[in-house]
């Protein structure tokens, strides 16, 4: 039930696939891992795939917003893909959908970064 993550570097984009549940409990370790990946310059852009994320609450919004700020400050882009209806509603409610790039799936997320890569 906890959170698993799988990272895969493609070009200059780090694809992070999350599965399980993203809440306050699991947010901390996700924050640390993503923060490190960005700080170590392992990627210019980040694609967050939520395809297998079965639950997320406002703690997830906090982590995503934090990484968006971090990566934007370094001139990179953050794309979120495979967002469920439930999670999309949280993005809408918080206004995050206005600043995040949201794509249907990994392929379209990658091609949206094509120009930037």
């Amino acid at each position: 039930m906890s959170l698993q993550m799988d990272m895969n570097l493609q070009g200059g984009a780090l694809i992070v696939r999350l599965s399980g549940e993203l809440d306050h409990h699991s947010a901390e370790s996700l924050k640390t891992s993503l923060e490190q990946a960005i700080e170590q310059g392992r990627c210019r852009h980040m694609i967050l795939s939520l395809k297998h994320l079965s639950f997320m609450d406002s703690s997830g919004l906090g982590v995503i917003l934090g990484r968006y700020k971090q990566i934007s400050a370094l001139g990179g882009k953050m794309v979120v893909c495979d967002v469920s209806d439930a999670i999309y509603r949280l993005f809408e409610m918080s206004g995050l959908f206005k600043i995040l790039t949201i794509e249907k799936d990994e392929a379209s997320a990658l091609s949206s970064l094509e120009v930037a890569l």
Partner: protein
Amino acid sequence: MTQKNEFHNYMRVQFASISQNEAFARVAIAAFVSQLDPQMNELTDIKTVVSEAVTNAIIHGYENRPDGLVTMTARIENDTVYITVEDNGVGIKNLEEARQPLYTSKPELERSGMGFTIMENFMDEVEVTSEEGFGTLVKMKKRITSKKALYN
């Protein structure tokens, strides 16, 4: 009028103020509310609001101290579920401010400040009472639509 379809139930759980119990609270509330045969999105809404309220109790009420107790109750009255989440922590100084979207008392923790806003959006009614030094009580109510037909 027949009272055949009347259905009442109640549960109460109490657990330590540690973040592992956020998932426990979600599983417990989902199992209890499942008796009303809710739709998937209704169940997700209820799990989300419970997650928010329990997280608030742990982070803000008990300021991450693991020795506090969080109490969750749920009552079913026909097609409506009433949920409470209570802590005996530090309480909220300014409730009006705390309920503002995007407000967070702990910006250093990378909180989104959306907890109460999510509760208000996903539930029919949300009532918060808090007293500094004594704790916070969140009361929420939601009518489960999928069973509406039975009780009309």
